């Protein structure tokens, strides 16, 4: 009930108009500042110039071509990374041996800044899409793994006792109590993971590639086409928003009982 009320408040015509107003005002101020202070287009382009580049990029199809590459690498990496994160999380939470022998290393490796691995990943997996997938995979693995473990272990001890009193098998306890209980946590991990996956892919493209929005960004930068850089950033942001929204829609449909969707654990 509360949720529905806040939702309608957020999407009321008035609220929408207000938010649109802020954007328009910001753009106007930006344009005025660039013209008024005669800022060099090599430093900060005007919104109009950025819009021009955006339209040109869409018309010529460069955004589509490079965007598709980046999205494909991101999504494939995210899928594989989340899946392995989930599976490792299940093994660690269910089997003591994994918990003792593998988990400390997972925690230790989590502290390694994954973007710093980009050069070596390029060496190992080449200039093609494989290395970008690998970057996306590596970077989203940890939040999903850690949240899966946390979620599976967060079932109350009494709940497990109750299940045991019905002589439930381990698999039954996992399936009936632990896994559904972990879903909100897992989705919190996925929400963090999808954003990180885009970053991973872009970093991979920065380090070495012939395709992708990261490459396009560098090309524009080398050509001093700063408006082009900004236009690419807009496209990247849109991709992030769309991917995140798709995930959220699945999240709320699947985890319908969750009233506090903002419990996020670990990054």
């Amino acid at each position, binding site marked *: 009930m509360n949720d529905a009320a806040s939702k309608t408040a957020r999407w009321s015509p008035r609220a929408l108009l207000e938010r649109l107003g802020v954007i328009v005002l910001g753009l106007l101020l930006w344009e005025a500042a660039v013209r008024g202070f005669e800022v060099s287009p090599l430093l900060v382009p005007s919104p109009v110039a950025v819009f021009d580049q955006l339209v040109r990029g869409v018309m010529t199809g460069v955004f589509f071509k490079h965007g598709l590459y980046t999205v494909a690498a991101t999504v494939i990496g995210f899928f594989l990374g989340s899946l392995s994160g989930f599976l490792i999380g299940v093994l660690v939470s269910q089997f003591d041996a994994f918990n003792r022998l593998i988990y400390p290393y997972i925690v230790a490796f989590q502290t390694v800044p994954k973007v710093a691995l980009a050069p070596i990943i390029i060496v190992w997996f080449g200039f093609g899409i494989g290395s970008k997938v690998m970057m996306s995979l590596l970077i989203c693995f940890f939040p999903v793994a850690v949240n899966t473990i946390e979620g599976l272990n967060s079932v109350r001890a*009494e709940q497990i006792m109750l299940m045991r*009193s019905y002589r439930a098998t381990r698999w039954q306890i996992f399936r009936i109590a632990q896994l559904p209980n972990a879903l909100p946590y897992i989705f919190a991990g996925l929400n963090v993971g999808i954003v990180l996956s885009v970053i991973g892919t872009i970093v991979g493209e920065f380090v070495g590639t012939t395709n992708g929005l990261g490459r396009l960004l560098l090309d524009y930068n080398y050509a001093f086409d700063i408006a082009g850089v900004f236009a690419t950033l807009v496209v990247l942001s849109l991709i992030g928003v769309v991917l995140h929204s798709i995930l959220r829609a699945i999240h709320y449909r699947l985890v319908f009982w969750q009233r506090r969707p903002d419990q996020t654990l670990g990054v």
Partner: protein
Amino acid sequence: MQESPELVRDAADTRGAVIEAGAVGKTYRAAKNRSVEALADISLSIRDGEFLSVVGPSGCGKSTFLTIVAGLVPASTGTIAVAGKQVTEPSIDVGIVFQSALLLDWRTVLENVMVPIEVMGLPRKEYRQRALDLLEMCGLSAFAHHYPWQLSGGMQRRAAICRALVFDPPILLLDEPFGALDAMTRDYMNVELMRIWQRNRKTVMLITHSIQEAVLLSDRVVVMSPAPGRILKIIDVDIPRPRSLEVIASPRFGAIANEIRAFFSADMFLAGGAKAQ
């Protein structure tokens, strides 16, 4: 539906012991080779169809005793038998209700009540009707297809009781099932529980903090000492059934309650409190 109270009591007395505890003790191994004795020398037999309560200060091991009876935790010393069999693992003869209702948020009330049936692999169709009948008995018919978070605390507890009864275990173990409820809801739940017990004739062991709850519901009340929990006294509650909330005001009720309360002197609580810290 209402049987003569005398008849019920006599019948209960002639039937044999369903839960038989012989010098049960429990010692937990704590850190650094220290061990904590939670329970010592508990000998008790609970008769078939009897309603027995265990009262004692916090941390006296009464919940531990329940988990031992349920076969969830092994006893360190002594023997425990349920329905004539030594307890080594959980048995389908026992239904448990904990303080928290422990309903699964993603299942409707009916689906929650059906969890034991699902786990035990009993025929769902048959037991679904039984589940619905139990919900009806507890006044939850209209909420069978609601989710637990749409229910009040009292309704959640009643659903938890239905879940414990659905596979028709002859023994019911209740671990402060109404501890988290407000006083008025608790009174109401006590009356409900008496009504359900009157109908089903289960053997019930209730763990509680509330002396009033214990006296109101029970045939006998076991009074336990602070940790390590020992039985101080077993008190017969000779108040005729069926009882209503009015009996609380009767002199006999007051006398029994006072007798129990006398065991929990201020000293005992201070000693228990100091130990806990």
